[in-house]
């Protein structure tokens, strides 16, 4: 019957389609699995919270120098949970983060292996590493104030405390208070002034905001350019990145950098860093990578391409970075700051910072 033939043809077509798809999928899966399980010597597997496009040139330079391939999984969150789920048998050898608190979390979860070599000890000063070598700082950046060239005379603001002064009412822009960068700064204020005074300060800053906290650090500097505000809080390296971008250059040029607290404790700095993981299959390679990242060549790449401050003494700053001038950095124990993040978030919530002025 016609209908029978038709349904038969349809079935055959469906079968061909299904088998084809299955074959394609199987081939694809096999290919992926092979590429993943090739865990021979000469490789190092990295979980990273640092952006891939920043790390790739560094990894390429490392591979070129040593022949060791670097494999990476990058995510914005959840890699620590992956580490916990995979346990000892997991493939990761090294963990990279863009801020210290998350590195400390890895350590506190018991995954950080102590590492100490002469090269590392020589490259990274003691204040930027855990005493047993369970984490190592690789770059630093300061969290500073960007001020409008036109509307803020030099010397009018010199401290973080000053941001709460009434004269700035309606003139400050900042990204949401619960962002890790702001939490780091608030944690530093807690370490310095205690919880009560920091809360008062935070209330003052909130009252001075020009708008509800929103956007990223660059968006705040852009808002200075647009005359929406006169002061913005941001990390130093964004200045370099904006200057290098033809479209954003004018934003950066509308502002200048103020390093606060130069007569006091110094500007708040945060570090990016790495840790070698407990039970790493490729520990030797991971240590080699860590040594490479702390060495002259990598430190210079960090400084040149990402406008961060090298942790290794003596590595030249890029011209852009040098143009902002020398500054005094806060020397408070970075691990203490990491511990205070919780407290900082509570304060942000208690004053309902993100609701804006």
């Amino acid at each position, binding site marked *: 019957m016609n209908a029978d033939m038709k349904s038969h043809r349809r079935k055959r077509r469906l079968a061909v389609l299904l088998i084809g798809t299955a074959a394609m999928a199987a081939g694809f899966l096999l290919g992926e699995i092979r590429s993943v399980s090739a865990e021979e010597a000469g490789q190092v597997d990295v979980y990273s919270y640092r952006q891939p496009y920043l790390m790739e040139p560094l990894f390429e330079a490392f591979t070129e120098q040593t022949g060791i391939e670097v494999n990476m999984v990058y995510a914005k969150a959840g890699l620590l949970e992956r580490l916990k789920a995979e346990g000892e*048998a997991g493939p990761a050898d090294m963990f990279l983060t863009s801020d210290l608190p998350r590195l400390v979390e890895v350590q506190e979860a018991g995954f950080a292996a102590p590492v100490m070599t002469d090269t590392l000890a020589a490259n990274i000063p003691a204040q930027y590493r855990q005493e047993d070598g369970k984490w190592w700082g690789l770059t630093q950046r300061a969290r500073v104030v960007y001020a409008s060239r036109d509307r803020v005379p030099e010397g009018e603001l010199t401290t973080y405390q000053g941001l709460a002064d009434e004269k700035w009412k309606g003139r400050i822009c900042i990204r949401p208070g619960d962002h890790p960068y702001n939490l780091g700064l608030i944690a530093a204020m807690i370490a310095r002034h205690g919880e009560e005074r920091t809360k008062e300060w935070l209330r003052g800053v909130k009252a001075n905001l020009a708008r509800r906290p929103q956007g990223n650090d660059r968006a705040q500097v852009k808002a200075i350019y647009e005359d929406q505000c006169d002061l913005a809080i941001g990390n130093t390296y964004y200045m370099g990145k904006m200057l290098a971008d033809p479209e954003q250059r004018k934003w950066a040029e509308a502002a200048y950098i103020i390093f606060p607290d130069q007569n006091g404790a110094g500007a708040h700095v945060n570090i990016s860093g790495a840790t070698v993981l407990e039970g790493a299959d490729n520990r030797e390679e991971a240590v080699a990578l860590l040594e490479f990242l702390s060495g002259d060549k990598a430190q210079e790449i960090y400084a040149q391409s990402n406008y961060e401050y090298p942790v290794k003494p003596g590595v030249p700053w890029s011209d852009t970075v040098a143009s902002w001038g020398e500054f005094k950095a806060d020397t408070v124990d970075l691990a203490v700051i990491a511990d205070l993040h*919780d407290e900082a978030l509570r304060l942000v919530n208690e004053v309902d910072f993100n609701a804006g002025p």
Partner: protein
Amino acid sequence: MDAGPPLFSERARSGLTLLVALLVAFPVAAVAWIALTGGIGDNWQHLWETVLPGYVLNSIKLAVLVGIGVFLAGTACAWLVTMHDFPGARFLEWALLLPLAMPAYVVAFVYTDLLEYAGPVQGTLRDLFGWQTPRDYWFPEIRSLGGAGFVMTMSFFPYVYLLARTAFLEQSLCALEVSRTLGCTKWDAFRRVALPLAWPSIMVGIMLCLMETLSDFGVVDLFSVQTLTTGLFNVWLVMGDAAGGAQIALVLLVFIAGLVWLERRGRIRRAYYVQTSRMKSPPRQRLYGWRGAGASLLCFLPFFFGFLLPAIILARLSGARLSTALSLDFAALVLRSVTLGGAAALLCVAVAVGLAYSTRLGVSRPAALAARAASFGYAVPGAVLAIGVLVPFGFFDRTVNGFMESAFGVSVGLILSGTVAALLFAYLVRFLTLAHGTVESGLSRLRPSLDMAARTLGRGATGTLRDVHLPLIRGSLLTAILLVFVDVIKELPATLVLRPFNFDTLATTAYSLAADERFAEAALPSLAIALAGLLPVLIISRAITKARDFGASPETEVLM
């Protein structure tokens, strides 16, 4: 009597359904387990006394905004396009699906760029009116709750449109004609006949939109709108309190479950089946003059805001940085995204048909409940769901590895964690409900007597499914495949966490570039996500339109 394969005895069927459903529900259960065993930390009290009420309120406001928005846009466009003819109707019929292919976070980014102070819109206004500073005039802030509601409505309404359109097409014209002869006006016919008949499908669409809305983090994060997901990520990531985060996820889940339950309760009292088998494509009514123009405009706007405008802006951005963007291994990225999407779509639809059909045949109560629970992955934020997948997979891998080491002295490493299999499983868990809801609402429109007739005529349970149901709900099946495929290609948070080493898709590449603030370069992969979704949208839209005439096809005539 047809004994059928033993697989289909009721007990075996219930067992199998229960097993599959529990497997899929496992990650959500894992999140619930983390939540319930974690104990109530003092974070809850702190949150409740400070920002949580505001977060909850924002989540509810957003859900209401998006719910109303997608209902209006989706249903109105579907009704106009299926039942009427007006300039551009045949083009808009499929073009209205295209916003599905555009990730909401990308749309949000594009509108920020367009509508913020420095954007071209406000810039033009300032030039026109001679305004100097932001204090000279008022302009709606895109980075706001309203802005998020707008972006999500424009990104999610195709779910409602698609399901409403399929439902309108599968409706019998006779019902409408009868209502007209009984004195209903056109509006009455829509309100009292077509809408109630399509209601289950429309509600499925709205529920999908609400689940997406409540679990979204990308858009609300970009707009700094503080919702429950914001609270969840703060508790989890900043306070390092995984249990607290899971507890907030659980609250979200209970909220969604409540909505689903309410919707089902409302539906139980009214069951509608397609009562006639002689289905004819509804003749489209031609709209003339201003009515035609109005219909064109009304249907064009959602397409314009949800797809065309963002696509044009992305294309312009990509053009500016084409050379750098093309240095990415582009073909490989596209192939990988498409294969992942295709494999996940087939997997989801196969499981969905199995679950929906066995429930229709009748399964034990626990099995039916489990089948329902298997749908909740969609309501959990992707990053949280990823943790739910990691925990059981990691446990399995560690156990197997431990056994192999103690028994044979060899380490096999991780078998499932960090493989494509883990990714596919996560997609199944997260997107099953898209397929399940679509397939189920398709099946629900087939009256039970159809099953009886087929069984009387000698088909077994599988035969009935293969020869009667699947052809009849072809439109719904294709819709299900499309929905899952497009969503997998867009999926970001779970893919980021679960993927193997050096494994990039279009979405992760776009995200990595955007995270590095290379927005112009991120535009090309974003556009490619939309284009990869475009082709299946076209194919499937055509197939659905063809399925419109299925009532007249010989297969069904033979079976009737």
